[in-house]
């Protein structure tokens, strides 16, 4: 399969035969490249809101009030911002891993399962680390999460290499298994006796992720995510391994010609991607829930894929893309609470926003460097 992200050699012209060319239209509207890309994205989001205004009106609410609530919910106070940032953190982490995989043309959609087992392993350490010093315990727990996520993804890589099963399938199937593994653990030894919901006991204060500002929930996970993103960017463009990944993604034949091993690349990048997702799982339990709880990984994997693709598999671009999702969701939830807009509209806005932003990006993304 060819790169789902980069497009083939396609010309820049506007007026070929065949289907109507929306690119031409946008090209005439837009001016400068970087500016134009941002401009398009903004137009796309505005368009999504305009479209969703119709159902909001139908539901008898005022779109203006609703969108004001959305803005306020996303940015209105430091609390809200902190919440949105916390929400973005696992998206960014997972998406960076997915992006690296995509760079090498490995389609890892196993984020959800990797997050689940990552959270599971981190929780196990957190519950069993006894009297270790706080910092050490946290680092150990997060490391356990990363290792578990990496191994979980590694299974898919090994099956791919030894049995030729495409990783799209194996990672998809392993998602279900990973999530069930968490349920199994909570039903068994790790569950909190007598709890009304499948969850582990609370972690000790000592193994919870420290917050960045006292009195606010914003935890250090965001910093970890940003550092990881920087590292991934560096890895991709400045290291031998990164070059190998790009070469594998650019062309398998060229990689073989340059003596770059496909097996090494697949294993390496899957371990990395799974590790990052596992880390995200660890951060989620240690920083948000303070316990392992059923459903904590729900939907994160697919959102991670969406974020990575939205960012065109560029690690740095993952940050704004992840923040976009985090803030959009946080704002939309607030909109529901404050104005009573039905939660279903939250999904409608998200769906339309993504589609429109994708369309805008699609028009721009023709000369992507690999």
């Amino acid at each position: 399969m060819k790169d789902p992200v980069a497009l083939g050699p396609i010309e820049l012209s506007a007026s070929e035969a065949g289907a109507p060319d929306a690119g031409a239209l946008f090209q005439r509207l837009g001016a400068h490249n970087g500016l134009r890309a941002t401009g398009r994205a903004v137009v796309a989001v505005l368009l999504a809101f305009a479209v969703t205004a119709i159902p909001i009106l139908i539901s008898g609410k005022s779109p203006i009030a609703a969108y004001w609530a959305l803005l306020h919910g996303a940015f209105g106070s430091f609390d809200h911002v902190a919440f949105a940032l916390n929400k973005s953190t696992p998206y960014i982490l997972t998406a960076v891993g997915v992006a690296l995989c995509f760079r090498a043309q490995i389609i890892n959609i196993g984020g959800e399962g990797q997050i689940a087992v990552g959270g599971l392993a981190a929780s196990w350490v957190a519950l069993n680390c006894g009297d270790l010093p706080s910092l050490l315990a946290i680092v150990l727990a997060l490391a356990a999460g990363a290792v578990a996520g990496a191994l979980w993804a590694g299974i898919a890589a090994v099956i791919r290499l030894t049995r030729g099963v495409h990783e799209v399938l194996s990672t998809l199937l392993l998602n279900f298994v990973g999530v069930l593994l968490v349920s199994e653990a909570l039903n068994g030894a790790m569950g909190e006796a007598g709890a009304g919901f499948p969850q582990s006991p609370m972690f000790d204060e000592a193994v919870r992720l420290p917050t960045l500002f006292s009195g606010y929930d914003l935890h250090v996970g965001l910093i970890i995510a940003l550092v990881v993103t920087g590292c991934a960017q560096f890895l991709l463009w400045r290291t031998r391994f990164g070059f190998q990944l790009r070469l594998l993604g650019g062309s398998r034949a060229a990689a073989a010609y340059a003596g770059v091993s496909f097996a090494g690349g697949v294993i390496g990048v899957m371990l990395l991607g799974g590790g990052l997702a596992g880390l995200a799982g660890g951060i989620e339990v240690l920083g948000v829930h303070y316990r392992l709880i059923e459903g904590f990984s729900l939907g994160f994997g697919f959102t991670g894929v969406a974020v990575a693709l939205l960012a065109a598999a560029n690690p740095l671009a993952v940050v704004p893309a992840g923040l976009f999702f985090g803030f959009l969701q946080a704002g939309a939830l607030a909109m529901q609470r404050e104005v009573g807009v039905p939660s279903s509209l939250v999904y409608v806005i998200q769906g339309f926003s993504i589609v429109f932003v994708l369309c805008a990006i699609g028009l721009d993304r023709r000369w992507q460097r690999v």
Partner: protein
Amino acid sequence: DEGKAAMLFPGSINDQSWNAVGYQGLVKLKAAGWDTAYSENVQSADEVEALRDYAKRGFDLVIGHTGRFLSAAERVGGEFPKTTFIVGSGSGGAGKNVASVDFDNTQFGYLMGVLAAKLSKTGKIGSVNGLEGLPNVYSQIGAYRQGARSVNPKIEVKVIYIKDMEDAAAAKEAALSLADWGADFISGKLNAAQAGIIQAAKERNIYCNGRSTDQTAIAPTNVATNIVEKWDEMYAAAAVEAKAGKLGGKYELYGLDTPGSTGASLKYSPDSAFNPAIPPAIVADVEALEKTFAAGGLKIKVVKEDGHGGL
């Protein structure tokens, strides 16, 4: 004007089941003079923020309509001493302002077991559920088993768990597999998926129980009765207590023997408790048992292992 009450749902109030009955609670509070608001489809990661946001906006009562909210309520409870947090089907309280309410699953599970055993001709009955290992789940199932054995010690009770309490098609298949095995009464405690059990019973013409009288209408001949959970009454009662400052960090378990609300009741239609096709003698036996429970004459003890899957 009683104050402001908000409710958080894990799913959508469209589900004609768990979330829908919870929503009835909110409707009741509104009728009682509360200002109400609600959020649906609240995911794990968003619970703390949702609870906190309502509390910050001055809501006096914030209800999380599933046990999953207890964890988050315990987290934010301390920050907002003026707000009362109530968790539906929770399993404990914390501090002065975080409380749980639930109905006594053992009583209704037991009643259903007795009814099923008395109706069964094959000596095999079944149950389809989700979330193995949860207290309110194993309470109902364990009691169902005990009730059935109290009628017929040799009765076979088979329990199947499905992965998702909202997946009606999956529940239907699970119920059909029980019917294939020979079960002629299928119980269960599912959300939107409960409808699947009823469709299966209809298709195989066997008995089942539903979770709201709406479900009778799906298969009037096959629904023996519904365990209708009175979340409206329970939340209303809890709200009154909370306003009076008496709720505290309690775990209120409503049953046939509690004042204020019985937590749930057996209902076939608004004006009858059982399917008219059920022999009066059986109805009388079950009703007598209800009275025993109400008088506190029977207490059911259930442990986690009683909720095991399979036979």
